[in-house]
């Protein structure tokens, strides 16, 4: 029951317009407020699927809004936008209760991918799955068994985690930095085509010899798993 209503708290008009336009084009309903107090007021409504919160706001700082929200038991997932891009700022943002942290300036595809991921998580709730499926590909999470049709696929541990991550995020775009974070738990921009190499290896094992490729490359953004 993930709501596709997004609350955007951003005081910079040009950034806000950019995000509004992009999200509207992708079918989201966006409420936009320009200061922290209004943001907090709207957030307590709890009708939103996710909140995009600028860190530096007039009136009430983004981190204060987040703290007040969490104190008021509002559990809507929050993505913080910040011009403070260092690792320690990011860690501070995440420990303060935000679900994700994106540094300005950012590519819209990255924001979109992360928002969709958050909405997915928020909608799913916590469920213990024992297997993942997509088309004729399946993973047995307990036995760490991967099969495509009746063919067993042998994967390296990291390839397995990469596939698991992609399958858990079926249908949405995951960016290269999201993969590095999700699979290897590092947060830096891999300079070369490192992630691409890993994905193409996985793709070879999964998709080779099949008519339906499951790993799609999304130009300028990243990858999407699914038909």
């Amino acid at each position, binding site marked *: 029951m993930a709501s596709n209503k997004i609350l955007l708290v951003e005081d910079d008009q040009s950034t806000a317009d950019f995000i509004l336009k992009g999200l509207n084009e992708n079918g989201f309903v966006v409420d936009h407020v320009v200061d922290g107090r209004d943001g907090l007021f709207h957030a307590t409504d709890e009708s939103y699927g996710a909140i995009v919160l600028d860190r530096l706001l007039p009136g009430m700082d983004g981190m204060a809004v987040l703290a007040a929200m969490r104190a008021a038991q509002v559990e809507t997932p929050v993505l913080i936008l910040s011009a403070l891009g260092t690792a320690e700022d990011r860690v501070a943002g995440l420990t303060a209760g935000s679900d994700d942290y994106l540094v300005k300036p950012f590519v819209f595809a990255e924001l979109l991918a992360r928002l969709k991921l958050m909405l997915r998580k928020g909608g799913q709730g916590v469920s213990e799955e024992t297997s993942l499926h997509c088309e004729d590909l399946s993973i047995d999470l307990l036995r760490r068994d991967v099969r495509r049709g009746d063919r067993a696929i042998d994967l390296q541990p990291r390839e397995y985690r990469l596939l698991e991550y992609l399958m858990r995020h079926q249908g949405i775009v995951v960016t290269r930095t999201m993969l590095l974070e999700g699979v290897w738990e590092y947060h830096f921009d891999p300079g070369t085509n490192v992630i691409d190499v890993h994905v193409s290896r996985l793709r070879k094992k999964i998709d080779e010899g099949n008519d339906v490729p499951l790993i799609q490359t999304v130009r*300028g953004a990243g990858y999407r798993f699914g038909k």
Partner: protein
Amino acid sequence: MLNWTRSFFLRGVWLVLLFEILVAGAVALAALQLAKAELSRSDAETAETLFEDMLAVANVSKALTLEDVVARRSSSLGSDDLFLLIDANDRVIAGNLARWPTGVPASRTFVEIEATATAMPDSRKYGVFAATLDNGSQLLVGHSLERSERSLTSLRDALLKAVLLAFPLAVAAAWLVVKLVDSRLRDVEDALEKFNSDNLSQRIELNGSQDTFDRLGEISNRMMDRIAELVEELRIVTDSVAHDLRMPLTRLKNRLTEAQASDDIAVHVEINELATNELDHVLSILTQMLQIGRAEAGIGREAFVAVDLSGLVHDMAEIFGPVAEDADRSLTSSGAKAASVTGQPDLLARALSNLVENALSYGRGAIAVKLHDTGDAFEIAVEDEGPGIPPEHEAKALRRFGRLDPARAGGGSGLGLALASAVMRLHGGTLLLARSKDRFAVILRLPKSPGNSDYPAERA
């Protein structure tokens, strides 16, 4: 123009002068007090001795009574002493005083009084000693204080002259001290004055005494070293930024201009992609420059956590392994278990990944990532079988924003080594280069205790 009244010069002279005068005055005063006390004591002794003497003479002598002795003494010519003997009814028996002076107790104590002796024209100061005798009569003996007064006066005059004489000496001394300080500071002043953007090599000459002025010079020199370094770096950075950003931005502009001239949508799509890549490149350069700047400034240490280097080495080898394989190279990792340091994991990962990427892009043959425990530090060496960085270019390669032309020509930002080096400095470590006949290694050296830092700690 020197503001005399507020300058250290005049104030310094005044202060030294004042101090000297105060000291001289205090010494004179103390000497005077001492002399006074000493004279007073001696006067009291004389008066008492005189008193006892008279009693003794009267006692010993068969012919003379005390009355006779007093009468004789008081009438002796030129005597400036005071004698008076009265009976129990206060009648004068003998002496050169008309009556018992007020304020003199007959209690064997020494008092100073002013009195006029019968033979004297005017009153004088006396130190007197009086007592009641066995028969009830009272005897007073006084000793003139004239001589003591005179010597005290002459002592006072002498001291005053000495102080007055000291005054010009004090002025000269004060001037000299201030002049000396001024001349020592003048050296520092001159050097700092001459130190500017055109002359960054100016330094203060030290005399090795380690005194205040020498230390001031030393600190100023260190400050000038740092400024010169920063100015030099700023020049390099400005040049590098200008060069590195202008190239891709110019290419970008050319591509976009090209696109504007075309009606073919396929051309637009292609150029759009090229332009996006170009921009990615520009953004990554900027990000790395910012990261280098922050690391160099020591920002981020407050967020240090425990980092397992063996895990880091393993992860990097795993992340880059497939990339190496695709290039028909091998990438292996080996080394110590449980190597924990405090640091910023993402920055350390970034530093190590930069070295691996360098080895992949510019090195040759098999790549080995090795973790060593050297006792007081951990070393992560990234080795390959290529020729490495030529020795003559090493200093340039390690310098902040220093880069080598092959890196510039290639797709990389050329900042990889500089960033790794900055990250090492942030962690109190160093980046080293090592070579053997067929191998080249770049080594990240991280001290186990962050105290062993060669990075200048930020002073609070």
